């Protein structure tokens, strides 16, 4: 039949093409005796995917005992969590996984993991003080769950910064150094709208409450106090009202999805963008105006409190052999050179000490990269990203997201929205 002959022809063409593509990879067959471990990450090509591949390749080439296979998980830490959930339900686990901070408690309550220090103590006498020597205590604390146990080691660290379009600022007659306080930012946004007709501000709206926490806690509110939600305090409401008023009253801030918000900043329709430092290379490479990243605004007379974004590395390997291999790989990832590479590839702030000012680390890189400076300079203000404890923790996080949409669409007042959400979260957490 003619139809089938065409199909067969096409199929064989594909096979030939495929065979060509296959040629190169048959070379690197896995050496006998190597322990094979899986490393799960969320780094898409635009978020350090290339760097993960390079680091893994470099490690595999120099290690005689361990072979790492990296698995990319789409849809960030939530997507990774889903895959991990399914994998564990099916009875197996990867060796190392990146866990986003918002999942810290959920992960430690539901999955079995081993504290890195335990693995080190058991097998690597020489690394006994590695963590102590190279990490600041407040950074290590980010990876402690609500019971105080060290779940993993901070790896990808990000903080929110304010990206500004200097061209638009000067067009509106504003100082191009940008606002330093939230109060100022609100004024600026209004002026920009009036003078240029462009949106003054966009604050990232992903499916988490990271930026919201920065806004609220910098004003002295606490998302959670003693295991109970407490964001509907006077300070919390005041902070949230600022954002709401910009969106609903002034209409000087944009309320839109994250991808679209970034698109609108890069093409010059929004003058100020509050988002993660991980967006640096995207913005730097594509914006055609005078763009800068400045430190996160403060509230007048108060200190910033910025939740750490990103992820920690945790060891989920169950067998001893795998756990050993996992640490060997992690030790490699936390070396000064690897961390420096990681920062260059992703825009994350180095989690360990001794990278920023080392010649073989980031010193030359930071000298040229003004934008990274903002993120590194504000590291002293970093606090843990609140993750609600218990089985209903994720649901609580979801409620806080739901109320964001209600408040910013103007369908409830900030006070009503936050208060009722706080109540329902506390009901859940009981």
């Amino acid at each position: 039949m003619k139809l089938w002959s065409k199909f067969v022809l096409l199929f064989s063409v594909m096979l030939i093409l495929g065979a060509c593509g296959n040629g190169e990879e048959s070379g690197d067959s896995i050496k006998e005796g190597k322990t094979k471990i899986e490393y799960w990450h969320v780094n898409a090509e635009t978020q350090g995917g290339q760097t993960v591949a390079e680091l893994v390749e470099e490690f595999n080439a120099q290690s005689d005992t361990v072979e790492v296979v990296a698995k990319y998980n789409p849809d960030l830490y939530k997507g990774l969590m889903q895959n991990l959930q399914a994998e564990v339900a099916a009875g197996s686990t990867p060796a190392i996984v990146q866990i986003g901070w918002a999942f810290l408690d959920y992960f430690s309550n539901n999955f079995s993991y081993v504290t890195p220090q335990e693995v080190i103590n058991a097998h690597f006498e020489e690394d006994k003080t590695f963590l102590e020597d190279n990490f600041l205590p407040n950074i290590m604390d980010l990876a402690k769950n609500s019971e105080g146990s060290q779940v993993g080691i901070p790896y990808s660290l990000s903080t929110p910064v304010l990206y500004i379009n200097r061209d638009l600022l000067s067009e509106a007659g504003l100082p191009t150094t940008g606002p330093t306080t939230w109060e100022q930012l609100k004024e600026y946004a209004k002026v920009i709208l009036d003078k240029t007709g462009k949106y003054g501000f966009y604050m990232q709206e992903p499916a988490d409450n990271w930026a919201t926490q920065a806004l609220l806690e910098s004003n002295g509110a606490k998302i959670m106090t003693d295991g109970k939600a407490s964001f509907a305090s006077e300070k919390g409401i005041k902070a949230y009202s600022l954002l709401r008023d910009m969106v609903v009253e002034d209409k000087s801030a944009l309320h839109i999805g994250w991808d679209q918000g970034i698109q609108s900043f890069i093409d010059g329709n929004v003058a100020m963008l509050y988002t993660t430092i991980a967006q640096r290379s995207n913005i730097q490479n594509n914006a055609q105006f005078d763009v800068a990243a400045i430190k996160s605004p403060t509230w007048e007379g108060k200190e910033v409190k910025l939740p750490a974004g990103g992820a920690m590395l945790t060891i989920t390997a169950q067998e001893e052999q795998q756990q050993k291999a996992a640490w060997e790989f992690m030790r490699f990832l936390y070396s000064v050179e690897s961390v420096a590479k990681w920062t260059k590839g992703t825009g994350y702030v180095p989690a360990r000490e001794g990278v920023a000012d080392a010649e073989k680390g980031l010193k030359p890189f930071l000298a040229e990269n003004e934008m990274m400076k903002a993120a590194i300079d504000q590291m002293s203000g970093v606090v843990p990203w609140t993750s609600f404890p218990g089985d209903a923790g994720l649901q609580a996080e979801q409620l806080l997201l739901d109320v964001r949409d209600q408040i910013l669409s103007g369908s409830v007042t900030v006070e009503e929205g936050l208060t009722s959400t706080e109540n329902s979260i506390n009901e859940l957490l009981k």
Partner: protein
Amino acid sequence: MQVVTSRSKKRFVHKQSILAYSLLLPSVAIIAMFMFWPFLYTIYLSFFDWNMISLTKNFVGLQNYIDVLKDPITYKVLLNTALYILILLVFNFTISYIFAFVLNFFVGKMDGFYKSAFFLPSFISLVVGSILFTWLLNPVSGPVAIVMGWIGLSMPIWSKSEGWIIVVITLITSWKIFGYNFILLYASINGISREIIEAARLDNVPLWKIFFHIIGPMSSATGIYVFIITIVQGLQFSFTPIKIIAQGGPNYASSNAIYHAYHEAFVLYRTGHSAALSILTMAIFVVLLIVEFKYVERGIYYENK
């Protein structure tokens, strides 16, 4: 040719049940393994409180069902589902039916070109469609918004507005499935004898009457198929843009029954709640299906029965 309105009872009988069963075996076996068993397992799960990984499943009886029925979000989501179905039917059933009719009889030239062009977007994955439309329809920076701006129109911030979000997502979904439905209906209408139509035209029967009294009934076998896949596949297909563009938001405004079951199971890890919701959704669909079997199938026209 005559229109047979009731199904012919007489069937050619093959008394070879064994052969029949063996013809069915491959399909039944694979469906049993990857559909029935998971389905039964899900029913089982709907009576437990479980997060998929903890070692203990707590038996909670009907509590999950009670929770689902008491949850106001369930009703919002079901209402959204109905809205999705309605809009999907308008674009992919009604409009494609009319287009198929018109293209068959009233457009002489270029019908080949039209057919191919309508079908083209069907090849594209909805992942691509979702990214593409997020960009194209950016209400501030997208090309569509800019062009609208020239004539003084502004675009609603659809990704954050109730109502609009469903409209845009169904448009994206329809972009993909419209062509396929159209081609099916076109082929079916094309199979109808031209003489009947000619005769009707000569008698000055208005177009809408031809459509409802001749075309509709005579293409109903395909029509009912298109009707069903529009609902079923349409809902499943819309999952991808919902997930990529809106994650069910803002405040569940874009969530439908399928996405919400996913959200409960794979975002909040409330397996039991999700299972109960899925079973209830399934129950609603089955009721619709029974209605279809009982009333609609009877009136369907199969040729040469």
